Each structure stands twice: as structure tokens, then as C-alpha cells.
């Protein structure tokens, strides 16, 4: 649905986005992850046709945004960061205005507005002026405005910034609901948000894409090594575990009585060692009380990418 090819944006001599390539398929929920100033918002603005790329191009649903921007824009529902709204308007008026801008025909307009209002639970405030609404409601009005022309693509720039924990949970729930029949691109500097809402991640740092893939792919890549926690009562356990193929180190975590805990670290790319560990312990005549593989965290990868020199 969205393709970026060597996408570049320079502001004067500052290179905000540096030759970025990515492809977002239909129905995917993709997160742009990166610290502030990494080029996420600039990239999003180029996708939505707010900024023209200095080099490279963006295709939205096959439409080159430099050639036929309005075709592409019709496919996109965009919620900019901080949800800018005309605060003197009433919620319903604003949604009607946006529907007209996107050419929603008069016949279906009322229904489209009703659906957007329902989706974003704005029923109670639909007649209220936007200036009287709280930040959380405003964010939802912005989202409803992005949805009102029923676009196949939703682009949300930092949708949860400035919201309280309850509002964040509600908004994430709503995004997951919408994921079913939309292609969603959201940006965030919050890792947990990506893990909770997205199935694909594109990691930005200093204007470049540093990593991209599904959450699971990145997790494995992130791990660099896999770690297992074993608790057993075999006396020769460290030696036995160390002898398993792929195992790098075995560390004792102490224990109580005859039960001892170990951390087993294996090289990346080695198979899941859980069965092998259980068998090896059993062969020594000992028993296993606990055995699990630690889920590798994205955070480690994220931190490593941020620390990498350009």
C-alpha cells in the first residue's frame, strides 16, 4: 500500500530523512519506532503529501505522490501529531467539514459521520464545541476525522502522546480494532507501544531506517544469543549443560539445598535447547524443576541501534 524509494528530505543543509526505503503491505500494522528527531514525522509528512521529498519518491496505493498527490491522499486518513483541530467548531461540524474536503457524497455523509462518531465513542460530545473537550477527546475527534472518509490506510503520528494511561489503553484498543480492515502506520518513541499494537516495525535513527521486520524477527535478531533458565538437582549439571551443542556459558544463580539454578546462554541461530537440556539432566539421574527460555527483548536491539555510530 505504501512504498518509499530512496526517500530523502533536506531542510537547508540538515538531512532529516536520508535515503529511506520501505514497503508496507495491505492490512499490515506497522510502527515507526525511533527517538525524537529521527525523521519519523518528516517521513510521514512526505507520505501524506504535506512535504515534497528532496529526492526519491513515495507511492501510496500505486499513486506517485509527486505526480497525483490527491489520488493518494484520498486513500489516507491522517492524524498529525498533537491532533490539530478547529476548536471553534462543534465535533459534528468538524467531521462534516472533513467529509466534504474528502469528497464524501452528501447522501452518505451523515452515515459516514455517524460511523466515525460511533467508532471513536464520541456520541456524548458530538454537539459540543471542540474547545471544551479534553485532550483525550480531542485525540479521538482527530482520529474520527481521519476515519470519516473511510480510507483503507490510517497514518497516526504519535497518537498516544500526552494522554493518560486509561486513554492510552482505550486508544490502543481502538487501533487494534481498526487493524482488522485497515493498513495502519503509526509512529512512536515508545517501544512498548509498538510491541502491543504493531506486527511490523521500522526502526529509525538519525534519518535512516536501521532495522525493519516483524516483531518476532527483530526479537531474535535482538537477542544475539538465547538464554535459558534451568533449575535442577543434578550434581554435575554445569558440566553436562556446557557440553550441549551451541551453549556458550553456564552461570550459577545459587539455589536452596540440592536445587540449583543456572542461566544457560546459547549462540544465536542454535535451535531451541529446552528438550536437549531436559534430556541431558534426566540422563544424569537428576530432575528438572523449572526450565524456560527467556524472551529476547526488543529493547536491547533498540538501544544497540541508537548507540551505533552512523
Amino acid at each position: 500500500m505504501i512504498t518509499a524509494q530512496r526517500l530523502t528530505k533536506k531542510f537547508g543543509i540538515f538531512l532529516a530523512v536520508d535515503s529511506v526505503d520501505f514497503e508496507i503491505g495491505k492490512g499490515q500494522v506497522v510502527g515507526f519506532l525511533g527517538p525524537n528527531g529521527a525523521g519519523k514525522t518528516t517521513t510521514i509528512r512526505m507520505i501524506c503529501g504535506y512535504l515534497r521529498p528532496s529526492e526519491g519518491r513515495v507511492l501510496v496505493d500505486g499513486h506517485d505522490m509527486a505526480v497525483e498527490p490527491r489520488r493518494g491522499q484520498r486513500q489516507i486518513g491522517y492524524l498529525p501529531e498533537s491532533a490539530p483541530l478547529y476548536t471553534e467548531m462543534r465535533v459534528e461540524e468538524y467531521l462534516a467539514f472533513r467529509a466534504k474536503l474528502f469528497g464524501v457524497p452528501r447522501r452518505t455523509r451523515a452515515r459516514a459521520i455517524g460511523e466515525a462518531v460511533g467508532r471513536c465513542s464520541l456520541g456524548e460530545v458530538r454537539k459540543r464545541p471542540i474547545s471544551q473537550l479534553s485532550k483525550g477527546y480531542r485525540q479521538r475527534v482527530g482520529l474520527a476525522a481521519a476515519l470519516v472518509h473511510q480510507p483503507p490506510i490510517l497514518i497516526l503520528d504519535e497518537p498516544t502522546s500526552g494522554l493518560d494511561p486509561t486513554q492510552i489503553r482505550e486508544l490502543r484498543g481502538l487501533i487494534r480494532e481498526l487493524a482488522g480492515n485497515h493498513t495502519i502506520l503509526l509512529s512512536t518513541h515508545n517501544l512498548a507501544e509498538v510491541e502491543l499494537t504493531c506486527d511490523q516495525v521500522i526502526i529509525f535513527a538519525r534519518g535512516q531506517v536501521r532495522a525493519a521486520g516483524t516483531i518476532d524477527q527483530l526479537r531474535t535478531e535482538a537477542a544475539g544469543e538465547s538464554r535459558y533458565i534451568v533449575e535442577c538437582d543434578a550434581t554435575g549439571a554445569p558440566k553436562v549443560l556446557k557440553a550441549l551443542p551451541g551453549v556458550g556459558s553456564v552461570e550459577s544463580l545459587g539455589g536452596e539445598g540440592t536445587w540449583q539454578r543456572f542461566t544457560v546462554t546459547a549462540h544465536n541461530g542454535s535451535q531451541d535447547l529446552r528438550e536437549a537440556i531436559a534430556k541431558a539432566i534426566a540422563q544424569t539421574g537428576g530432575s528438572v524443576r523449572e526450565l524456560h527460555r527467556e524472551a529476547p527483548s526488543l529493547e536491547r536491539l533498540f538501544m544497540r541501534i541508537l548507540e551505533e555510530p552512523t
Partner: protein
Amino acid sequence: MSAVRAIAGRELRAFFLTPGGYVIAALYMLVNGWLFVRYIFNPGEVATLRPIFTFSMLAFMLICPAVTMRMISEELRLGTLETLLTSPVRSAEIIFGKYLAALGFLAILLAPTLVFVVALEVYGRPDYGELACGYLGVLFAGSVYLASGILASTLTASQVVAYLITVLFWIIVLLGTKGLLQTDVLPVAWQERVGDVVIAADPTMRLVDFAIGLFDSAHVVYFASLTLVLLIAAVGFLETRRWR
């Protein structure tokens, strides 16, 4: 076209949802009312609205920039311009919609003066050709002031700066043309040729013609094309926002 209507409608409503519009309208009507009872509505006076037309042409120089100053600047400052420019709408449609809304506001401002026309009809025999010509002149004057105000508004996120740019521009144009014609600053050899250009560029003489009921199609072409040029420039500057 429906986008133009939507933008114009939103802008026009915004005037009446903020106090600024009412303040401008009240002041303008107050002065008009005074002009009417003091200079027009007297026994033996000619049944004309010339004082009101002349005043309006001048007053619009200050009113129009106030009407247009927020049009793009405010959207820039609040970030709503991003939602407009990411909608499937041409920059020209945005500018034209806003121009129409501003012109509509001027029409609403002028509408109450029709009461004066009724009064003239009841107590005298007004020349409707002259009146129509006067209204047309006032609207043309407003049209170029509005177009220049919208252009200034695309240049800055500050409403005050947008207002000042517009007003100063027109003060310089009006004083400059008078100054060039009435003082002897130009080299003698140039006086005739440059003088012709300055006279042609000066809107005041043309507006005086409209106010006294002298309809000249050259004036119509002048104001229509000046409006168009200013609006096209505004579209151009709005478009360059995408390149920054």
C-alpha cells in the same frame, strides 16, 4: 468545487464564532450611520451614497487585512494547515475558498447599507446606476485588499505581521503614487512615461470613478486582474510551504 464551498463556509462561520467579526461590523456600521445622517439624509441633499462609498473604500484598507490576517497564519500556527494540505484539495481551492469567505463577509458588512438605499428611495429619487457602480467599486477595492491580505497571511504564522505587511503595502502604494506624481523627484525626461505607468497602477483614481458612478471597463479589468495576480501569488507561496 465542493471543497471550495466547504472551506469558504467554515471560514465564514468562523467570523461569527469569534468576537473580532462583530467588533469590525459594529464599528463600520456606526461610522456609516453617522455619515448617512450627517452628510446625506438632509433636505435638499443629492440622493447619493458617495460619502459612504468613499469612506468604505478607505476603511476597507484597514478592515480587509484584519479579515484575512488569520486565514493562513492561524492555520500555520495551530497546525491545522497540515490537515488541509494533506486533504485531496488543491492549494488554489484553499486560497479561493478563503477569498470567497472574506468577500462574503464584506458583502454581509455592506448589506445593512441597503437600508440607506431604501431611505433614499422613500425620500428622494436616487440614481440606481450610480449606486450599483458605487457598490461595485467598494467590492472591487475590498477584493484587491483581501487578495493582498491573504497573500501576506501565507507568508507568516503571525497574524499581526500579516496585518502590518498588508496595511503598510497599501499605504506605500497610495502615498507612493501620490508622491511620485505630485513632487518633482523623477528626472524630467522620465516624468511623462513613468507618470503614465504610475497613474495606470494607482487604484485611487479608479475608485473615485466608481464612487461617482463612472463605469469604465478598464477599471473592471484592472481590479479583476490585480485580484487574480495576488491570489495566484498566494497559491504559489502556499505551495512552497511543501518544499520547506
